[in-house]
């Protein structure tokens, strides 16, 4: 399978780069999940990356691109092994991707030790923003705490006095529940971390939430688990009783499955498909035309990675050994991001706005997410002080 990818990437690189720089290509290793239900996320990221490459004529900074896709199977131990393979056997110039915080944490050591240029396009582990930050690693997403912290601010605005928090028991789940507590001023009446990734029935936890009688429930359930959680929340008759606030639970991938159940459940995000900047309009329209689906934030962040890498390679005029030069250019975030322009903090995590988003039914019978308001402007994660880079 992997050999086929390499062959396909090589073939594309050859056909798109005639005569000029035949001998020189950029090798990009792309680590994401391509098996099991989370493959829906991985495919959205891959589709967006491919679309980004097409928008650049499959050349970044003038050099033809070869992409090697690697499947982490949602497992940290597989993720680190694939990362090592990309660095040591494939000698890639860039590593891009990572959905899961626990997979990223496991894979950080080989990335940092080998000083491989890295663009993380989703996972936002607090360690990566803090003590494990690296001069050569950048993020086009966020630090985990930021999105739930924005939700917490919105809950304050809505006058929520008490909340019950629930999420899965892994690195990101812990970050998320900590994040909402950073900003939420009300009382936390209960907190649950459920088995991950195999627990899909939340009846006992929803009963607990109901018994705690909070003003609101905050939930973080990424991917397919979000569909189950919201469905069971509605089936328990809680939708009319205790409002639900979410982070990364309702997205463009889960919405077609949740449909009406998701309408009226607010969430926060740094990117929504209806943001009106030209780069985003082009990305969303072309994605829909090519793949007949709406892109998600996972895809948008990955699409941005293409622009970021292009800016770096252009700045060093294709000299991929000049890592210092690429790093300095990337720190400027000098490309057209689909979320609108942003800058990087000292730890290479974006300083950016977070929006309130809402799901609504369209006149044509479909469902889509909409930007309602800006919750917080130029938000910087709270771990940047722990990063030794200044």
């Amino acid at each position: 399978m992997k050999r086929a990818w390499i062959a396909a990437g090589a073939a594309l690189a050859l056909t798109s780069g005639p005569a000029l720089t035949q001998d020189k290509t950029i090798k990009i290793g792309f680590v994401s999940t391509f098996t099991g239900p989370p493959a829906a996320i991985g495919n959205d990221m891959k589709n967006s990356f491919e679309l980004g490459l097409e928008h650049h004529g499959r050349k970044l900074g003038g050099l033809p691109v070869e992409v090697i896709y690697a499947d982490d199977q949602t497992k940290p131990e597989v993720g680190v092994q694939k990362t090592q393979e990309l660095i040591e056997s494939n000698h890639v110039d860039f590593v891009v991707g990572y959905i899961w915080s626990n997979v990223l944490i496991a894979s950080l050591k080989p990335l940092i030790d080998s000083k491989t240029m890295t663009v993380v396009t989703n996972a936002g582990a607090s360690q990566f923003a803090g003590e494990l930050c690296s001069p050569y690693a950048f993020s086009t997403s966020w630090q985990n705490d930021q999105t739930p912290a924005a939700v917490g601010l919105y809950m304050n605005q809505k006058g929520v006095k008490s909340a019950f928090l629930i999420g899965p028991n892994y690195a990101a789940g812990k970050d998320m529940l900590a994040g909402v507590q950073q900003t939420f001023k009300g009382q936390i009446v209960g907190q649950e971390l459920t088995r991950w990734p195999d627990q899909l029935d939340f009846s006992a936890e929803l009963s607990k939430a109901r018994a705690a009688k909070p003003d609101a429930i905050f939930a973080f359930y990424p991917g397919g688990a979000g569909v189950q959680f919201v469905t069971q929340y509605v089936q328990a008759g809680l939708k009319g009783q205790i409002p639900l606030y979410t982070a990364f639970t309702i997205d463009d991938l889960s919405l077609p499955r949740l449909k009406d159940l998701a309408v009226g459940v607010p969430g926060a995000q740094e990117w929504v498909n209806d943001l009106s900047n030209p780069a985003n309009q082009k990305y969303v329209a072309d994605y829909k035309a090519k793949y007949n689906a709406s892109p998600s934030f996972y895809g948008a962040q990955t699409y941005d990675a293409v622009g970021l890498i292009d800016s770096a390679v252009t700045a060093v005029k294709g000299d991929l050994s000049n890592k210092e030069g690429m790093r300095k250019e990337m720190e400027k975030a000098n490309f057209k991001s689909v979320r609108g322009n942003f800058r990087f903090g000292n730890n290479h995590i974006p300083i950016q706005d977070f929006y309130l988003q809402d799901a609504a039914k369209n006149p044509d019978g479909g469902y889509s997410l909409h930007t309602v308001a800006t919750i917080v402007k130029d938000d910087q994660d709270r771990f940047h002080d722990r990063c030794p880079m200044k």
Partner: protein
Amino acid sequence: MLYFFEQFLNGIQLGMLLFLLAAGLTLIFGIMDLVNLAHGSLYMLGAYFAATFADWTDSFLLGALLALAATAVTGMLLEVIAVRRLYGRSHLDHVLGTFGLLLFFNELVRLIWGPAGMTLSLPSEMLNAVEVLPGLFYPLYRLVIIGVTLVVAVLMYLLIMRTRLGMLIRAGASNREMVGALGVNIKLLYTMIFGLGAALAGFAGLMQAPILTVQIGMGENILIAAFVVVTIGGIGSIRGAFMASVLVGLADTVGRAFVPDLLHAFLSESASSSLGRALSSMMVYLVMALVLIARPEGLFPAAGK
């Protein structure tokens, strides 16, 4: 008190789901002496069929009935084409063979339905909670699961204890050669049992689909719990499977609902929460260990074994 009762219902409901899965498993394991890891695949197929047919017919009920028939037919075809070749071989061969089938079905589902998973939507009147006791609301659909499974359990009992087919099944379990010598078509009998087991697995899959999910590999986690149920209940015993299902369902729910809070009474916050989570995921296996120490054959060992 109401909260306790609500958690009790949660436990019963989980138990009912496990029973549907374990009943088919214990039939096949007990009567045909076949370790069937592909049972979870039939559970997955039931859910995928139901989601697809419900989409075509625009009716949850019609979709469920069609899916039930389709899973039974798939099960019988599977038995004739592949599983039949495994009888009389060692359990290790069973595990290898049916594990291969499990991988095959996962890939087949990915090719046909794609990796994203599907949704089986409930009719809107089911999307609600009803007041079971004053002040206690419980999801209507979960009550339906409990009710329907009890009906299935009674039907199973009648089928096995009161019909000719049931008599043959019981006879086949005790002494296969003798039943064959008496002129009963044992091959056909086995195909039918496998089909029945498949239908039960498919039924479990489609019943849980609106609550949990319709996705690849959905049968694998719950299959482990179903094997625990079969072991606790006594291999081949439907009655044992029923009792053990309720026991395991309650143990799992009680573990998740009360153990962390209980520990919190005499441990610090962080210690009790991490220990509580660890303990609550072990509860089911602790129960199994205790039962097996007291009764190594399970709660209700099948007669003649």
